[in-house]
């Protein structure tokens, strides 16, 4: 019986089926808002699904110089890692389906894997633009990863736990402490924009400079899976921020908790869409400077606040 439930969790809810559906809804919300902000009409609700199906039906072209095995496997790695990460996040109540102490780090690690697969994908394509894109992928990883991790550690420090579920439970019992992490919340939002490679940090796939970056040589199903993985990454990242900084479901009744989850993730998607509306793409060296000179010190400052709060009030 246990195994049936496990399969159900993994494949239907909250795993593959739910996550892909919701990922595409989030992509649509993002695109629609982006379009409305730009006074365009925007796509119909089924556009992401239609794009995905179209990509699945297209021919796959693998460059002769590329390693075909790696080329086919990398999109699956990206998809699998974000799917796994989602299982450790509390959704409709404070407890995730699977949880152990230290799963914050595991989720963070699993969220880094897609970026690494993008890098490898670009590197294995052996095309000039893809190689340049993959170098930028890794360079960018070093810029946003540290501020993002430090900002996530703030709440963990406050709650005295490395488990997302326990952290969530802690903040549900003391919601006032969520206000302490307000700086970290914004740092995480900005860093996540870098992780998801969206404007102003869409440097690795800057269309006008290096075509499509790492994905230049990808087509058909493989590109479709990569695109899907990026959609899911958006959901996972939004859920992570909602759990860590916004108190997740607040321990309410599962149905209410689920609605709260939807509202909060869509809110985060909307904020991220706003970010990419009002800004231009920056250069890679500007991003490094920004992340190390401003974002990292600010997140460290947040950590300091949390240490002081913990020392005096808890």
């Amino acid at each position: 019986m246990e195994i049936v439930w496990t399969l159900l969790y993994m494949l239907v809810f909250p795993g593959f089926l739910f996550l892909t559906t919701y990922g595409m809804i989030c992509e649509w919300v993002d695109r629609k808002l982006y379009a409305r902000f730009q006074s365009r009409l925007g796509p119909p609700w089924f556009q992401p699904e239609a794009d995905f199906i179209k990509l699945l039906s297209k021919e796959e072209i693998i460059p002769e110089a590329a390693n075909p095995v790696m080329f086919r496997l990398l999109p699956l790695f990206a998809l699998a890692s974000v799917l796994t990460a989602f299982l450790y996040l509390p959704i409709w109540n404070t407890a995730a389906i699977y949880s152990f102490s230290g799963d914050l780090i595991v989720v963070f690690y699993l969220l880094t894997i897609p970026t690494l697969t993008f890098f490898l994908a670009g590197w294995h394509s052996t095309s000039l633009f893809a190689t340049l894109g993959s170098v930028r992928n890794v360079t960018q990883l070093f810029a946003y990863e540290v501020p993002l991790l430090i900002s996530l550690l703030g709440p963990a420090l406050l709650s005295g736990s490395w488990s997302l579920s326990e952290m969530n439970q802690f903040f549900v019992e003391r919601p006032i402490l969520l206000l302490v992490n307000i700086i970290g919340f914004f740092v995480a939002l900005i860093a996540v924009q870098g992780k998801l490679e969206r404007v102003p940090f869409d440097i690795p796939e800057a269309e006008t400079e290096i075509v499509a970056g790492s994905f230049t040589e990808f087509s058909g199903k493989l590109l479709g899976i990569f695109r899907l993985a990026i959609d899911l990454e958006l959901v996972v990242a939004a859920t992570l921020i909602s759990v860590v900084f916004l108190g997740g479901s607040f321990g309410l009744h599962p149905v209410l908790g689920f609605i709260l989850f939807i509202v909060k993730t869509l809110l985060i998607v909307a904020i991220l869409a706003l970010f990419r509306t009002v800004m231009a793409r920056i250069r890679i060296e500007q991003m490094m400077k920004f992340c190390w000179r401003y974002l990292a010190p600010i997140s460290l400052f947040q950590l300091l606040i949390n240490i002081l709060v913990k020392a005096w009030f808890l």
Partner: protein
Amino acid sequence: MSEIKIPIGPQHPALKEPESFSLTLEGERIIDAEVKLGYNHRGIEKACESRNYIQDIYLIERICGICSHSHSTCFVQAVEEIAGVEISARAQFIRTIVAELERIHSHLLWLGVAGHEVGFDTLFMYAWRDREAVLDILALISGNRVNYGINTLGGVRRDIDKEQSRKILEIIKQLTERTEYYIKVATNEPTFSGRLSGVGKLSTEKAKELGAVGPTARASSIERDVRRDDPYGAYAQIPFKVITDNHADVLGRTIVRVFELLESYKMLKYLVQNMPEGALTVKVPRRIPAGEAISRYEAPRGEDIHYVRANGTEMPERVKVRAPTLANLAAIREMLRGGFLADFPIVIAAIDPCFSCTDRAIQLVKDNGAETVDWRQLRDYSIDWHKKRGIDLSRI
């Protein structure tokens, strides 16, 4: 890090027209750039020689989709000079009104493209939405959105009535507000201005040396504008300022263009309110007497030069077009050198290039480099080539 050479173009998302740039990179830095022209030669100059002057106006108008009026006015001015025709003041005003409307639509288009090149698609959408208003006006005046067909030898083909004038003033008011907003965006939005300032530097000396024209030169604080230096149309009668800037980079070029927009609005207002009465056209003979003329015109992208030689027949003997992009291309290499790969699209976009308008074949050189091919040889070659494939074109 070792040097790598990457090909940008002839097909690349940053380029809207085929053109080849070969960049030598060290990491993300551009060490050297090589520009190769000639992917879009259309033989327009040669085609002009086998058509009469009226037909040529329409052909010349199609050199460029954006500055179509610039080219046709420039050509018509040259022919009128040879024929010794003086057109009426009203026709001059109408030509100038269309010219300024065209400048507005071109500059708004450029602003959008600049936004897109640095990944600021919101600006792109906003600027192009406002551009629609200008295109609507142009369609109202001429019936067309891009190739207006308003010029003819000896004047203009359509009048601008009271209702149309009112509409122009209305749109200008609306656009002035929008442009002031864009000035704020271009100078205050940190990610956007951060991407523009200090990029694609071109010092005043270098700009002079390499013969830059138009907004590119004016952004390097060179006060050069044909409208003032060698007035044509109604420009001698209307007050306007030549906008210059001393940033000498892409930000400077942006500032020059947005302030030129404001200047164009003022000029249009003056033109519409002070339009003199008069005939639209004067008679021009079908056969233009022998002679030659050079005509200069300040297109939105810079100085456009046309040379026409007439031999007393209905058709010109030679037409030569120098589009402004050709003058600015020499400066591209200088601007790219030492910059970042990320800045390459915006540096190229900053001269507002129009590669298809630029390509002219002057001389065809065979592979060995020693032999040049003339027109007759080229024709024979083409006939042979087709004959081998079963088509006989020798009688055309």
